[in-house]
């Protein structure tokens, strides 16, 4: 059954409007949990987080407590962290290495492959309890692309590699930083709540229009640190260099920008210090030798904020962040962010990468707190949604040709896909 559209997508009048109810309604959130989070591929974790057989991480994915783990044979699993007996969490530790997960309530015990291996006093069942049918439940599908593991609750979903569509090329571009093609999640997680609807973070993650106004103090910091940021020279640009918005299929999209802010991978800026120059030159030489000049330029001299629908963001900018976020009510989200780096990265390059991360990103960074503030101000403003109903998102729609990172083309890609999955008629 189709429902009314949440967007006005008028290509003739070059107007795109979003119904603000979708950012405040609990009823719409319930529907999202089924139609979006219940059907799309959702990021669980990265293989590098589980280095050895028996390693595990417990976390919440789309509101579901799961155990992301490897069994004794090294196979990866995603198990629902819920005892089959009476429902308690069976893994209470955040991370570690275990052969068994034992529920503290009645002692039911599971292997790290999810099998039920122990039931205290099982003679009381007189042989009627089939242990093989009582392993920990797991999502219908659990698949990987180049170290990134996703789950899907829909048995009939397309394979992950098909779902990712054009996003795969942009994941590859991030991984090309690593000489061995292996990236790792770096220790230390940033987990913070934002009192705003989760979809506002999707928008914010790729919206380069907001940079000059929201992040002027960051631009000042860059200038104070000797990074020359020229005002835009081309008409229509709000940023110093050209960047475009690219549609990648299935609701995924990315910005693709000529870098002006420095990158730990082979783009030196004064913030890194004179001593870092030689090492960054070496990193660049390795890139050119391995990938050729053209691909090396793509890797080193562009920055990209990639959204994998619905809620995974990989920002390859001042550093690489892997960021995911889930709704906790219509007006609140929980954000988890990690730093990603090449597995073989040396100590000083790793330290530089982490330092560069903090110049911009994270709850103590010089930019993210102002993003959080902006999103929270939106949510507060939306208390007037019934009287002031539509958000204006037509920027760039009237232009022929390329859509810029500071247009709203990519935001419209998200909202069209979201609207479609919610069963609405555009």
């Amino acid at each position, binding site marked *: 059954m189709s429902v009314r559209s949440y967007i006005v997508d008028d290509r003739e009048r070059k107007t795109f409007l979003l119904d603000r109810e979708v950012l405040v309604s609990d009823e719409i959130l319930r529907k999202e949990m089924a139609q979006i989070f219940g059907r799309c591929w959702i990021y669980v974790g990265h293989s590098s987080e589980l280095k050895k057989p028996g390693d595990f991480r417990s976390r919440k994915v789309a509101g579901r407590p799961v155990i992301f783990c490897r069994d004794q044979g090294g196979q990866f699993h995603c198990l629902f962290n819920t005892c089959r007996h009476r429902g308690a969490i069976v893994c209470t530790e955040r991370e570690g290495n275990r052969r068994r997960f034992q529920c503290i309530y009645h002692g039911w015990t599971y292997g790290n492959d999810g099998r039920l291996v122990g039931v205290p006093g099982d003679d009381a069942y007189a042989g009627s309890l089939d242990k093989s049918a009582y392993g920990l439940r797991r999502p219908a599908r659990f698949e990987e692309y180049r170290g990134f593991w996703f789950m899907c609750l829909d048995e009939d979903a397309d394979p992950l590699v098909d779902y990712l569509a054009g996003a795969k090329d942009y994941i590859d571009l991030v991984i090309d930083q690593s000489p061995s093609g292996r990236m790792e999640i770096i220790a230390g997680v940033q987990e913070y709540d934002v009192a705003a609807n989760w979809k506002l973070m999707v928008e914010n993650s790729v919206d380069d229009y907001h940079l000059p106004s929201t992040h002027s103090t960051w631009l000042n910091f860059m200038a104070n640190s000797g990074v020359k940021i020229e005002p835009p020279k081309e008409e229509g640009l709000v940023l110093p260099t050209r960047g475009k918005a690219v549609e990648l299929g299935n609701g995924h999209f990315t910005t693709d920008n000529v870098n002006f802010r420095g990158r730990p991978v082979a783009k030196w800026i004064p913030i890194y210090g004179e001593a870092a120059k030689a090492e960054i030159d070496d990193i660049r030489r390795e890139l050119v030798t391995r990938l050729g000049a053209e691909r090396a330029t793509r890797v080193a001299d562009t920055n990209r904020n990639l959204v994998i629908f619905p809620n995974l963001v990989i920002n390859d900018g001042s550093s690489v962040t892997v960021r995911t976020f889930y709704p906790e009510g219509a007006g609140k989200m929980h954000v988890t962010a990690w730093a990603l780096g090449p597995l073989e990265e040396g100590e000083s390059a790793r330290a530089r990468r*982490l330092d560069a991360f903090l110049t911009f990103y994270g709850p103590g960074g*010089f930019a993210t707190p102002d993003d959080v503030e902006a999103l929270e101000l939106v949510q507060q403003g939306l208390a007037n949604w019934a009287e002031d109903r539509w958000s204006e998102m037509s920027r760039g729609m009237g232009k022929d040709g390329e859509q810029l990172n500071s247009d709203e083309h990519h935001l419209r890609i998200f909202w069209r896909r979201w609207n479609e999955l919610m069963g609405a008629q555009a």
Partner: protein
Amino acid sequence: MTMAAPKVVTRAEVEDFLYHEAALLDDWKLNEWEALLTDDATYYVPPNDQLEGDHRSTLFLVADDRERIRQRIIRINDPNCHAEYPKSRTRRMISNVRIVGVEGDLVKVAANFVCYRYRRYERIREYVGAYRYILKRAGDGFRIKERRVLIDAHELGSLGSVSFIL
């Protein structure tokens, strides 16, 4: 001429210093606060899941060297630091102050804190944790050489951000 015996550091002196620092931070007198720092001062807030991590190999919330602290103050003082404009009201309670080591002119100090942060619309955030300082004797007082803030919450969660000097 006899050498003066090194002055013994008392907890009361350290407490007075920490209370003075807390008052400057709560009053947003960040330039005066900055004058309490040594030229090589550092300020760290480790991530909630790796309190004992090393900032060179672990992603922190804050890992500032002296220059970054200077830039952080410039940023916070700017009305375009939206996360702190209008300014939060903060109130720090510091207790359980202990001198945990003395090496030459360096004094290692541990203390507990609660910092309440209020924003408009009753957004109330309570940061609870421990401070770890390395203070350096300077004349009759101290300077801060290292300031490390360990947050007890398992995740930053509803505390949101650390957009002020915690």
